[in-house]
């Protein structure tokens, strides 16, 4: 499992004399407009180990790159520093340049003097130039301590696991299986098909839902590359991208695969219960198949209902009725263990339970139903044989109301999002009613009709043409007339600013979608993160919309956000393609920012294993040692920050490197500077965004980039104070949005501990600030710096000296 230790090769680069080349970019006037680049270059030349420094107009141009390559050879440079824009933009470019010249790409460092300097200090050339010098100094200091590194390669098992057998899971499984990969499809319910199997028609084409889904379902059942595990659950996932070891609990069906689905058993079963598949509107027996087209078609016994649930076979009616002797009451749960390279999460969504909205009386009034119940009612295969009947008297309703946004877009219910499908679903439903019973009076109470997709607007128009009444304004309450069980809907027509009272026979609540209640175990097992809404969070909303932040895991369908069938299928195919790319390549490289471990210092306390969000560090209690699984490592570095014995540090962000940066900042005028530690993904990007937007803030801040705020060890902060920094900022992603799952929770804990310490020592804890800022919150970052600058101006020399004293210890190890 464990990957071999990264080789530290190429002694020519690492050992011997350090020769640094510095290039200061003008970026046209972008930098040169506010920074005296020539002066910066001159300054750079004076720095230790710098053997070559120059400024040029565009370092990233071909010319600029050629220059670097030439200099590496000519001046025997073994470290390169470019002071230009954000490393988030051009670090890959220059790394490649170095590689082309035969220099290990990890021996390159950047100073961000554009986004973090010239653009945010447009009108203060002198300060900006001074700051640029500092930034270059920091970069040079770090560069002198850079080490070459080799990225490790991880082989990928060419098998995939798809969790969830709704339409998304089915599509993803079929696509991967057709590509030639072995696919395990795990479904919790007895049959695949998911939500799509339950609805009647699909919008906007009005195709019969099960008619188009059933062939796909049976393809899954017959595909030689697909192993279908229905009535099963993923219980454990270990491993990492390319090498997941998964345990699946296969719950017993109590019917063997010999079942021919003839249904004789069901006929004789004496137990009757509501069929969940029909939203409880129809009955089924203890031995049943959820619906006619179920895959696998094997019947199943609901052991919670069966008379034999106590373990004594008292009733053998089904057994006697079964010609094939397929019934087996002794079937036991089985655990299946598989190894896969990629995982697609397609667990779908739940529908909102409207019984919490008391004013709509769902569950109290018989004739208030949900849109899902409606689907079963209007479905020819449903409990009423496709006759829309109202539950109170089983009559066909003459007046029907649809109520939109039930459980969606509501702060109170915690579901602030639009559920995406309900508008069109209602329009489709209203047309279905009109098709069968054209005289029906249909009111749709809405706030915004969202008919955004292909063919949606036409459908909306058609509904209006058919005479469906669309009324803007939701009913405030539904009241039942006790005698007739008719319903009164009271609300405001917000276009006419008039109150309405509408009497209908039946009301249908267009319930929204919500994250599955059982998604928590999946989240935990796969170390995924979720958005505030509770849906799974993609790695990037625009550019990696189907990837999870954890490598090798992809999303399809409503697990990621509410979507209609078309979007689910699209995303499923995309997820299959993404997983396929990985598996086709057969291997993956891991960036060399993984932990470096010094076993001689380790006291096997296990703290690192506890904080690792990827379970990439394992505490082996038997052998009394800590084991690193580099391939599983995400590269946050929180383990290095946590280790009390300095037994761990992070490659490319070593303690030594970061401390050298801190020292560089605090070498002069420390009492006027803010040392800021920013995580690469949110805060640093937020500062970049402030620069791109030209938000001006005081030039007192010096940003040190870490991959995650979780990398910021308390000793860094202490050292900054010990060296006389006026203030320190630790900035990362918002809690819950961490790029490394939850590493930033450690940040919070560490900062809180430092605050406590400062308070106890009589220091002003305001001098250490914690900021959560996303990549889009440039203004948030800028205003924080403005706020902190006021603090810097106020802070007294005594205060700074006090801090120096308190944190004196942190200076050790110089």
């Amino acid at each position: 499992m464990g990957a071999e230790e990264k080789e530290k090769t190429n002694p020519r680069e690492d050992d011997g004399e350090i020769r640094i080349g510095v290039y200061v970019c003008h970026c046209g006037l972008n930098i040169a407009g506010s920074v005296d680049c020539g002066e910066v270059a001159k300054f750079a030349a004076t720095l230790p180990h710098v053997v070559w420094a120059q400024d040029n107009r565009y370092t990233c141009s071909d010319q600029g790159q050629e220059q670097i390559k030439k200099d590496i050879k000519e001046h025997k440079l073994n470290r390169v520093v470019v002071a230009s824009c954000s490393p988030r933009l051009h670090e890959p470019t220059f790394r490649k340049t170095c590689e082309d010249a035969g220099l290990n790409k990890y021996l390159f460092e950047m100073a961000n003097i554009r986004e973090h300097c010239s653009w945010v200090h447009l009108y203060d050339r002198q300060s900006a130039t001074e700051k640029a010098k500092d930034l270059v100094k920091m970069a040079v200091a770090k560069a002198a301590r850079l080490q070459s590194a080799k990225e490790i390669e991880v082989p990928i098992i060419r098998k995939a696991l798809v969790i969830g057998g709704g339409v998304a899971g089915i599509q993803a499984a079929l696509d991967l299986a057709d590509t030639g990969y072995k696919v395990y499809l795990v479904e919790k319910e007895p049959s695949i098909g998911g939500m799509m199997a339950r609805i009647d028609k699909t919008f906007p084409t009005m195709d019969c839902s099960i008619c188009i889904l059933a062939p796909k379902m049976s393809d899954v059942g017959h595909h030689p590359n697909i192993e279908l595990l229905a009535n099963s659950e993923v219980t454990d996932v270990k491993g990492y991208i390319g090498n997941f070891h998964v345990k699946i609990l296969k719950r017993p069906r109590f019917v063997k695969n010999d079942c021919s689905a003839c249904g004789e058993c069901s006929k004789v079963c004496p137990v009757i219960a509501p069929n969940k598949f029909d939203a409880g509107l129809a009955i089924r027996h203890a031995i049943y198949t959820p619906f006619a087209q179920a895959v696998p078609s094997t019947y199943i016994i609901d052991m919670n209902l069966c008379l034999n649930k106590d373990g004594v076979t008292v009733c053998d009616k089904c057994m006697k009725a079964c010609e094939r002797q397929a019934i087996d009451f002794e079937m036991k749960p089985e655990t299946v263990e598989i190894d896969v390279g990629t995982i697609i999460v397609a667990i779908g969504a739940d529908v909102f339970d409207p019984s919490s909205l008391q004013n709509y009386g769902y569950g109290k009034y018989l004739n208030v139903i949900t849109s899902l119940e409606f689907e079963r009612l209007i479905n020819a295969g449903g409990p009423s044989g496709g006759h829309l009947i109202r539950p109170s008297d089983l009559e066909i309703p003459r007046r029907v109301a649809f109520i939109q946004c039930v459980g969606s877009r509501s702060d109170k219910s915690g579901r602030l999002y639009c559920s995406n499908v309900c508008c069109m679903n209602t329009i489709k439903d209203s047309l279905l009613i009109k098709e069968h019973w054209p005289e029906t009076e249909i009111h749709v109470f809405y706030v915004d009709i969202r008919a955004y997709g292909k063919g949606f607007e036409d459908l909306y128009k058609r509904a209006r043409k058919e005479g469906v009444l669309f009324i803007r304004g939701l009913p405030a309450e539904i009241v039942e007339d006790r005698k007739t069980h008719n319903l009164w809907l009271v609300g405001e027509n917000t276009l006419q600013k008039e109150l309405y009272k509408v009497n209908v026979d039946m009301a249908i609540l267009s319930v929204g979608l919500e994250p599955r209640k059982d998604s928590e175990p999946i989240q935990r097992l796969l170390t995924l993160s979720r958005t505030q809404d509770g849906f799974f969070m993609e790695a990037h909303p625009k550019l990696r919309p189907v990837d999870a932040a954890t490598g090798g895991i992809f999303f399809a369908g409503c697990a990621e956000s509410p979507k209609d069938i078309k979007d689910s299928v699209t995303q499923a195919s995309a997820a299959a393609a993404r997983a396929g790319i990985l598996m086709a390549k057969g291997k993956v490289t891991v960036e060399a920012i993984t932990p470096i471990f010094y076993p001689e210092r380790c006291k096997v306390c296990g703290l690192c294993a506890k904080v690792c969000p990827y379970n990439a560090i394992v505490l082996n209690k038997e052998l009394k040692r800590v084991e690193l699984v580099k391939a599983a490592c995400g590269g946050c570095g929180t383990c290095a920050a946590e280790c009390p014995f300095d037994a761990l540090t992070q490659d490319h962000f070593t303690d030594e490197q970061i401390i050298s940066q801190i020292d560089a900042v605090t070498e002069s005028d420390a009492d006027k500077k803010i040392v800021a530690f920013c995580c690469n993904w949110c805060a640093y990007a937020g500062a970049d965004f402030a620069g791109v937007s030209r938000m001006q803030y005081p030039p007192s801040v010096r940003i040190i980039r870490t991959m995650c705020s979780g990398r910021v060890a308390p000793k860094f902060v202490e050292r900054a104070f010990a060296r006389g920094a006026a203030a320190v900022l630790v900035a990362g992603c918002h809690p819950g949005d961490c790029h490394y799952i939850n590493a930033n929770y450690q940040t919070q804990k560490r900062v809180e501990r430092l605050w406590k310490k400062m308070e106890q020592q009589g220091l002003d804890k305001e001098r250490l600030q914690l900021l959560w800022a996303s990549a889009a919150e440039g203004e948030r970052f800028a205003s924080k710096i403005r706020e902190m600058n006021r603090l810097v101006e106020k802070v007294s020399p005594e205060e700074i000296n006090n801090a120096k004293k308190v944190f004196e210890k942190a200076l050790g190890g110089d």
Partner: protein
Amino acid sequence: MPERIRHAPLDMGKATFPKAKIQLIKDQCKGCGFCIRFCPQKVLEESQEINARGVHPPKIVDESKCLACGFCTAVCPDFAIFIIEKPSKEDVKNG
């Protein structure tokens, strides 16, 4: 499928549960209690009366709960209890 069920099945009224008449041959009972203990619907319980053999035979608590599984017939060592299934009208359609 996770959502809570709020509505009673529409065809619940049409559902025909198997019905049975439970016959006790009381004096043949030796009072082992097997039928009482293992009835899945808890239809039987020990009575207070004393039969010809000096034991308490079972009595029927609620015959309407009986689903005619016939376990009492099958487990009785003394051939003292049996059920007669009442003919049900039509087999209930499933879902």
